[in-house]
């Protein structure tokens, strides 16, 4: 038994040039920001930056050219993403659409859906949110109750979605809906592409613990959509969301959310750090380096057409634990004089991450659920 058989990350030639291009792009286009706003940057929204990324060809990179994509290799896309995240660029506005909604439409959408939406997603102009969770359905996603009923050649959808990231900025929501009344668990579920300006849709903000507005609740009150809004076959929703979630799990965003704090620690420690800080920087570097190998290997497997669901769950869980431990470990190593009220870059980024990092092991599947997936992969359930 070998728990992790590494797949070489071998993108086609041109990676150093590509990195240089992306770094130049970031230097030119990313707003000058402080360390705290570089943290968790894939939750930071900036429409102008997303449009600039679209112009530069960094959204929908792997999609076919006929849908506004750039037919690039998936590992070139990976390189672009890790550069953006390491630099703390504000990529939140288009992140979900680029990562999962676009690929979902490419795989299961109709020709009309692709032609209508993919080019403007790739341009950084159309944003999408995910309507999966509901008040009664968190980890137990199969217990969703939002109901869709046939109405002539269309559907009427009623229910409530919650924790919907970016619903207040997005034009579209991809919602998971129960289309067979009384169906059990993961049967009878279907995905729909719902424009958020459809009558009957109400988006209400949910303010997070630091006062930020990232997620929302979305009420669907007898919302009428044509059958052309359906994504994939009726009843295929569970299979589709599971595929979507595995795209969600092993990317570089699962271990780089707190990277900005490591950068500030290195700045604070200086070129000749005291032993405690040198040891801490060394340990965090070793963990970061290892996670990068694991995430890249998983990306390479995905690119080779394999389904590394177990590896993806491992990367997400280990990555999230690292992102959460990083600010705690730095806090523990600081001198008493550096309390969190100090107005330095390091303390600001730490204070933010210490407050928001609990969400890292909730979003995209909780720690406990991921470990359950790993246990299944080990043959324990």
């Amino acid at each position, binding site marked *: *038994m070998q*728990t992790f058989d590494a797949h070489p990350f071998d993108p086609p030639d041109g990676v150093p040039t590509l990195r240089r291009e992306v770094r130049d792009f970031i230097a030119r286009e990313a707003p000058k920001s402080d360390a705290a706003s570089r943290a968790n940057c894939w939750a930071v929204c900036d429409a102008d930056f997303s449009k600039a990324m679209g112009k530069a060809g960094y959204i929908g990179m792997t999609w076919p050219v006929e849908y506004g994509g750039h037919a690039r290799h998936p590992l070139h896309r990976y390189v672009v993403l890790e550069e953006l995240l390491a630099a703390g660029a504000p990529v939140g506005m288009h992140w979900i659409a680029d990562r999962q909604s676009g690929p979902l439409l490419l795989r299961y959408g109709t020709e009309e859906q692709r032609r209508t939406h993919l080019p403007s997603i790739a341009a950084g102009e159309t944003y999408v949110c995910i309507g999966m969770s509901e008040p009664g359905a968190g980890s137990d996603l199969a217990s969703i109750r939002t109901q869709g009923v046939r109405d002539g050649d269309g559907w009427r959808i009623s229910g409530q979605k919650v924790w919907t990231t970016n619903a207040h900025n997005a034009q579209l929501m991809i919602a998971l809906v129960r289309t067979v009344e009384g169906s059990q668990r993961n049967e009878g579920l279907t995905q729909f592409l719902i424009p958020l300006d459809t009558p009957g849709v109400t988006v209400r903000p949910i303010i997070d613990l630091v006062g930020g507005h990232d997620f929302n609740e979305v009420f669907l009150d007898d919302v009428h959509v044509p059958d052309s809004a359906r994504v994939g076959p009726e009843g295929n929703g569970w299979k589709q969301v599971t595929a979507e979630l595995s795209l969600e799990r092993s990317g570089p965003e699962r271990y780089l959310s707190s990277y900005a704090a490591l*950068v500030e620690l*290195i700045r604070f420690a200086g070129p000749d750090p005291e032993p405690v800080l040198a040891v801490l920087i060394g340990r965090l570097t070793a963990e970061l*380096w*290892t996670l990068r190998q694991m995430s890249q290997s998983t990306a390479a497997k995905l690119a080779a057409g394999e389904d590394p669901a177990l590896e993806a769950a491992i990367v997400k*869980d280990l990555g999230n634990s690292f992102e959460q431990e990083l600010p705690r470990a730095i806090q523990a190593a600081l001198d008493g004089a550096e309390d969190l009220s100090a107005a330095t870059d390091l303390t600001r980024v730490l204070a933010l991450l210490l407050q928001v990092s609990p969400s890292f092991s909730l979003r995209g599947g909780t720690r406990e659920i991921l470990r359950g997936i790993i246990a299944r992969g080990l043959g324990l359930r």
Partner: protein
Amino acid sequence: MSETRTLLTDTADRLFTDLAAHPDAPFAEVWPSIAEAGFESLLLGEDEGGFGGDWGDLFAVARLAGSHALAAPVGEAAVAAWALTRAGLTPAEGLATIAPAVDGCVENGRFTGSLKATPWGGAAQTVVATHAGSLLRLQTTDCRIESGHSPVGEPRDTLTFEGAVAEAAPSDIDLLACGAFLRTAQIAGALDAALAASIAYANERVQFGKPISKFQTVQQTLAIFAIEAAAVNSAGQAAARAADAGVADFEFAAAKLRANIAAGQGAALAHQVHGAIGFTQEHPLHRLTRRLAGWRSEFGSDRFWAQRLGRRVAGLGPDGLWPELARRSDAA
């Protein structure tokens, strides 16, 4: 490399499985079968009478040695032979090993000092050591041997020399880092083996009317274990790839540090899942976990590698770490 690697790992797996069936066999009986299989010359080119293997092959073999709790310096002998050849020194006579730490000095081609905790130092004929930018080749016939042992009882001997003839050649080979790489591979193998044993045991042991693997807490414990084992396996393979592409000092340091962290946690989790039976001499689990305990401090502790890596990263400055990580992997 992968076709010959399969051949190599099949041979190693078969041989190490046989040897693991007699864990108390004397070393003098164990070593000849390993030497005969040619693992010592794994890293030597085919023109040098070797297998022409790379660091990925060495990782695979040392990992298997770890997973079978093999009590023999397979990796040490391969690294010693490679280092001697690279530095242009006389090939080893008999068993060769590497010294993790050298305390002493060379004057007029003679070495006075000691080599501490040398794996199978007393059993070896040739010892290779890194000292002040040189590689030293010493013969154990010229030294006093003070035997020492790792927790599981493997020899870690201190060899003391007084004016002994030392062949030396300038070299940038860092045997401490090479040894760290070997221990990373062994830890990767031992963690995977201890995990497999823990999973098998959890599926078989019944308490409260069901296999303990059906308890969610046990499942979550084993998931954490698998994550740690995966991290070391991934780190070790990446370090091997870096060494095959060029200088891998950064990667060897990071991988051993990550392995050290996992070794401590993995051994503890394996014992927790096994309950009291795993705490007996009769049950084979301790052959893995006691080795893990020793390997963690050998060829560089957590603190040693963390400090070395941390200073290096600090020297790169706040905006230097990411480009360095990217540059190193792009070159691999």
